């Protein structure tokens, strides 16, 4: 499965938040192997867009098709393909970096790759530090290091490089390229220009 073409197609999709339609009649195609970046002003609906793709939004009109099938027909199965990185970091302050990562790895059944994941974001030295002592960027990097573990096909990354230093951004870009080479899907919402070959969509 991993090296097959995958695609997400949106047809006339609208999505409301509260009583405002945030995403209005969007049609587009997201293909595997190519990075897809969403840009737009604050509050234009980038995060909403990603949440919609992850199946978290309820008030969705129109069709969203993953490999030809609506994502809502087999939602649980579809959602198993998704790696979603939200604006927050799902990190427990009292757990060390290692423990935090270990738990998420366990949930995915990938406990063996943790060392590698820590190395990917240069967190080996901080391995045993409780996460509450991490700086903001370090926390984000700990969250991002889940990417090095996951086997999921669709990566939805909401402002992944927020607060990261340049070096970390480069490392992230490398990983994304690798995933794309494996025919994965990557959708990123960001304000920062990344050095990636992209389809860009303006909300």
């Amino acid at each position, binding site marked *: 499965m991993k090296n097959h073409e995958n695609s997400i197609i949106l047809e006339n999709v609208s999505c409301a938040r509260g009583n405002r339609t945030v995403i209005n009649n969007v049609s587009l195609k997201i293909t595997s192997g190519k990075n897809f970046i969403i840009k737009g002003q604050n509050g234009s609906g980038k995060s909403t867009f990603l949440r919609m793709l992850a199946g978290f939004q309820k008030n969705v009109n129109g069709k969203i098709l993953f490999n030809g099938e609506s994502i809502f027909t087999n939602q649980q199965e579809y959602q198993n393909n998704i790696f979603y990185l939200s604006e927050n*970091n799902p990190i427990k302050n009292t757990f060390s970096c290692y423990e935090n990562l270990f738990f998420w790895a366990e949930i*995915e059944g990938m406990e063996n790759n943790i060392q590698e994941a820590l190395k990917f974001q240069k967190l080996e030295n901080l391995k045993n530090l409780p996460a509450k002592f991490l700086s903001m960027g370090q926390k984000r990097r700990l969250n991002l290091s889940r990417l090095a573990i996951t086997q999921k096909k669709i990566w939805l990354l909401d402002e992944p490089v927020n607060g990261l230093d340049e070096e970390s951004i480069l490392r992230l870009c490398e990983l994304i390229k690798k995933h794309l080479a494996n025919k994965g899907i990557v959708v990123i919402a960001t304000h920062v220009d990344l050095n990636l070959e992209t389809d860009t969509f303006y909300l």
Partner: protein
Amino acid sequence: MFKIFLSIVKRDLKLSYKQGNTSLNIVIYFFLSVSLFPLGVGPETELLSKIGPGIVWVSALFSSVLSLDKIFQADFEDGSLEIFNLTAIPLEFLVLAKALAYWLTSGLLLVILCPIFGLILSMSSKSILYLTITMLLGTPTLILVGSIGASLTVGLKRGSMLISLLILPLYIPILIFGVSAIDASINDVSAKPQLLLLGSLLCFSLVLSPIASAAGLRINME
């Protein structure tokens, strides 16, 4: 599936240990709370043994429910819940796992300790036995019922007031059956009906509350 269930339980136990909601603390809280009542009511042993079951039960309620309303809060706020949603296990299992972990760190301990408190409150050995049994059946139910309320109020949308108004009174039947089972045993009436009711409440809530809580979480997650 079961492995993931276990690892959630393990994580929650570890979290509660690291956050210091350790067994020791709960014991002390319970202990202090049980010992406050005799202070308020006065030291006459006969009176104490009479209201003893009520005291232990209310203290159990307070100490086991103390942080129950926040059981999903942290996972909700930091986005862990969303990640659970993207794994193979259904949210119902997550609820069950979290409730189990919570019970292991609070309810179970109270059950183990309540004979001691029964002694402190000069209860007879028979009513201590019944106290222990009712607590064993009742505390998980308290926690399961409480988790419904916690799931509904987790996002703190408007109207959360109404929800807690609905859920908190659900503790009442558990408390009433628990206390009256012990009373029955004291008065040499069979306590079987109360125990059966408590047992069936537990079974009910074991099935219903994960479903209801998961639904509650989904509502608030949008």
